[in-house]
């Protein structure tokens, strides 16, 4: 059943959670840039601003320690990083495009070997999604089959109401529990109308058709054409809610140091560079092809999901104006031979 929560009570909820030791992550201004970051109090939250990077980093940080080592003579001591130390977390104000990407990431981090760094944070995090009321030219969630009211990935989902406050619907036990333990902050939903939702201009793209074309066009002139401008900066992967490629590096001295897992990008030349000097993706078109193929074919082949939720961040941030939505649309219009 839908509940109502006022803006003031949402702030009270956040402050209550923080006071109880819960990590609350929400859009917040960080050195002039809106990011999903831990709040010190509810006043820091800027719920109406779309963060520059996605919410994935609450589960998959930009860089994190996975172990440390200490050397003493010929002996090495390895110190494990216990994932159970991760704090209980509530994510507030997560855009539907960001929330929908989290279950997509579950697939890669939980198949076969389990990445507890991701999964333990996942278990300990409650996601409060927020219906989107403002879209810009780059938004294309509607093109990839989602919408500004998509609830996938959200444990609780807030819909802004005309006249203030939010309609609140729970979609999981975690969401239900949050309402139950803070029931004084929620009330019965009156008949206030929701604010008009955002209306991204992008028309729905037939992703099955896109995949069918990709299945048969690993070699195609398209790749040279679209990637000729790409400078391989990797920004698209870093702002993407679904990109999850990572590097593992040691940082330290002869005596002691840490091993870290950090974000990486298939647009980088070094990503696939062999020590021998050989590089199977030696040119930018091959790397850009991998980006499109991974999102719209390989991930689908393996997990039955698309690795793109149409958030538009890569379109906004690309220094040379590459528009993935336009490329995928172009592919969807191709004749399938």
């Amino acid at each position, binding site marked *: 059943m839908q509940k109502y929560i006022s803006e003031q009570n949402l702030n009270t909820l956040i402050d209550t959670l923080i006071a109880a030791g819960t990590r609350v992550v929400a859009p917040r201004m960080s050195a002039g840039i809106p990011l999903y970051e831990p709040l010190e109090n509810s006043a820091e939250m800027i719920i109406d601003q779309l963060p520059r990077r996605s919410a994935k980093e609450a589960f998959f940080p930009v860089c994190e320690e*996975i*172990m440390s*080592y200490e*050397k003493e003579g*010929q*002996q*090495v001591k*390895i110190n*494990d*990083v*216990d*994932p*159970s130390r991760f704090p209980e977390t509530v994510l507030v104000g997560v855009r539907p495009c960001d929330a929908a990407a989290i279950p997509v990431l579950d697939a*890669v*981090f939980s*198949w*076969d*070997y*389990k*990445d*507890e*760094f991701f999964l333990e944070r996942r278990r300990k995090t409650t996601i409060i999604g927020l219906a989107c009321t403002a879209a810009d030219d780059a938004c294309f969630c509607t093109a990839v089959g989602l919408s500004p009211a998509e609830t996938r990935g959200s444990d609780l989902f807030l819909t802004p109401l005309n006249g203030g406050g939010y309609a609140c619907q729970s979609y999981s036990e975690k969401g239900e529990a949050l309402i139950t333990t803070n029931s004084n902050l929620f009330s019965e939903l009156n008949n206030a109308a929701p604010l008009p939702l955002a209306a991204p201009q992008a028309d729905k793209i037939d992703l099955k058709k896109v995949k069918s074309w990709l299945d048969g066009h*690993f*070699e195609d002139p398209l790749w040279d054409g679209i990637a000729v401008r790409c400078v391989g900066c990797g920004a698209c992967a870093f702002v993407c809610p679904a990109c*999850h*490629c*990572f*590097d*593992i*590096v*040691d940082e*330290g*001295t*002869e005596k002691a*140091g840490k*091993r870290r*897992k950090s974000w*990486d990008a*298939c647009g980088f030349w070094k*990503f*696939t*560079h*062999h*020590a*021998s000097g*050989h590089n*199977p*993706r030696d040119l930018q078109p*091959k790397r850009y092809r*991998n980006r499109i*193929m*991974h999102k719209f*074919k*390989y991930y689908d*082949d*393996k997990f039955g999901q698309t690795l793109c939720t149409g958030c538009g961040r890569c379109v906004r941030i690309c220094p040379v104006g590459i528009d993935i939505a336009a490329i995928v649309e172009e592919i969807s219009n191709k004749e399938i031979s």
Partner: protein
Amino acid sequence: MCDTTNTNIYLPYLTTVAEVIDETPDVRTLRLVFQDEQIRNTFSFRAGQFAEYSAFGAGEATFCIASSPTRRGYIECSFRSVGRVTEELRRLEVGDSMGFRGPYGNSYPIEEFYGKNMVFVAGGIALPPLRTLIWNCLDLRDKFGDITIVYGARAEADLVYKRELQEWQERADVRLVKTVDPGGNGPEWDGKVGFVPTILEETAPSAENTIALVCGPPIMIKFTLPVLEKLGFSDEQVYTTLENRMKCGLGKCGRCNVGNVYVCKDGPVFTAKQIKAMPMEF
């Protein structure tokens, strides 16, 4: 085995360097023994699997396990020093600690090879991924028919496992054909002179009831596959291993894929039939 229930899948086992063998001026073999007694006694793997080896402070590098699963108590890796991690691994001395994460990937379906003749074709530094299987076969010698090894390198000095080549040459139940590229032979050279594909054609092993295993630089593989075809081998009878840059080895970090095939999970062992169905991305 690095079991899937381990909380931190990125944590390596600690091993001790038990032996250092210089194969060539820049290729070295390390024999490693697990420090934990229980792992030392229970660790098992299959020929063809690989691992992540760490030099703490430099990082991890991916190599196959070069020793045979039939030789218990230790594992070996052979590598050329070409990068940051391998340079650090090269500094390790007997008694030093080294990290090992694995075994990962698929393996040679050796049980399917029982009763068949085996032809191994390798070039240069690519003998290690076959050496694990060669010794596996030799340690179960009566399960296999004829065993032929065609191995070549640019020059005599570039041949790895020289002591073992000597041993194979002396064994009556192995046919070793060793070769060096034209100009790579010294005055004492007692092998063939010529490129591996040419020498393979000259050796002409029968394709009848035979499995061919090929490992080498891409150029060698390119010219070897047509020779095998000419000798009557079907693509299902030919196996190779792929190598791509890897970090996790666990099907997550996203860089070793050839099209939608993950070398770390679906490979590294593939048949020529599987390789030919892949896009050219290796």
